[in-house]
């Protein structure tokens, strides 16, 4: 789902890159297209811990329901922006 549709803001991406620094055990280069499972080797446990930090950082709740559709950093950035907008 990262090929078309809305583009996330640079600020959102930058914030996610910053959080991801401490989760990036593979040393993969971080770009909007970086994939959580394939490139960063995230397992289910790491995903949960990472999402918890994202929630704190943006002061939002990320429903588990959306996670199957989040493959890349860009996907997550778009989802986060949607939630932030809905909370306003």
């Amino acid at each position: 789902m990262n090929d078309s549709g809305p583009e996330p803001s640079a600020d959102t991406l930058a914030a996610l890159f910053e959080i991801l620094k401490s989760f990036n055990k593979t040393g993969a280069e971080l770009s909007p297209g970086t994939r959580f499972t394939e490139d960063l080797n995230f397992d289910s446990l790491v995903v949960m811990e990472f999402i918890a930090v994202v929630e704190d950082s943006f002061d939002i709740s990320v429903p588990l329901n959306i996670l199957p559709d989040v493959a890349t950093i860009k996907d997550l950035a778009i989802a986060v922006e949607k939630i932030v907008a809905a909370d306003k």
Partner: protein
Amino acid sequence: MAGLFDRFAPLMGQRDALFGDSGVNPFSVKMDRVLSQTEAMIEGRRTILVGTNNYLGLTFAPEALKAAHDALEASGTGTTGSRMANGTYSCHKGLEDTLCDFFGKEHAMVFSTGFLANIGILSTLMGPDDYIVMDADCHASIYDGVRGGSAQIIRFKHNDAADLDKRLARLADKPGNKLIVIEGIYSMLGDKAPLAEIVAVKKKYENVYLLSDEAHSLGVLGKYGRGLPEEVGCEDDVDFIVGTFSKSVGTVGGFCVSNHPDFETLRLVCRAYIFTASLPPSVVASATVNLGLVKNGGALRKRLMRNAQQLHAGLTAIGLKVASENSPVVAVVAPDPQVAVAFWRGLIEAGVYVNLALPPATPYGYSLLRASLCAAHTEEQLNKVIAIFAQVAAKVGLAAPVEHKRSAVG
């Protein structure tokens, strides 16, 4: 073309790296003969069982054995049907009445396992416009249950009422019902939910319900064994209690009790209730009789807690890091999976059975040697268990206190 099981290759690789191809492992260990609630023959050795969740030791209660034998003779080995089809006997209704009486609730539904009770209730109760706000450390059956439904699923930080409050506040203006999901005692570390604080948060908002899974606290907490809500004194504030007969009740099966006036609707819509075979009459008889023993089991609860304190104190004294105090679950934290496996093997080879629990099934990425106590453990048995823990701890280099370790940034 990828093979059918290729995606599990990394997992199987991890398993092989941890366990090798020789020696006993948790996936192959079997109890050749169960000698009592606290002992079994494993690989030809008389082994003390300290990992059965048989908290009150009711698996051999003579009253339940007799009732089960009688039911077996009278009604046969199985019902061959679901609750909605031909699988509801008067004994199933009788067990539901017993549960209502036990909990002082208006309604009760019996499921075929505790896992199915969570699957059934959590996938059905909340609809597409609703929200489930669950503790992050909830059991796999709760995760699978909520994922099987249509509600939005939000997690709050384990045992953090302030985080729950924050998340409910964000949802306050949204239409739809909200269901908080917690456990009375969490299975892996044995820690209790801060129920009074959670109830206080719940009361700040409208259209919020509370469900507690009392799988590990039923029979263990409260004067009459009704679990954490009884101990805390807020039973009216817990809208749904889910539980299992497979731990302190000493058999198998699950249930949900509630005072909600429309609760009976669930019998028509809950697929895990409608489309699976009902419990065999002998199991229903065991559960019915043992619930009475649980209710009047104050002496058993005292012995259970005394045993838990003995094991906790003994393991702490030899320098092991133990997760929770005053809990029937005594979980020793090992520094990594390799040490945990060596420790577990050392214990089983010396005649002590505990549960080996590794990430991702554990909170904080802990590698655990999880012991659970039984009221039927003797002081002498536990002294022996502690001595064997000390020997094996020394052998695997764990004589000194272990630091907490998390799998990722925490």
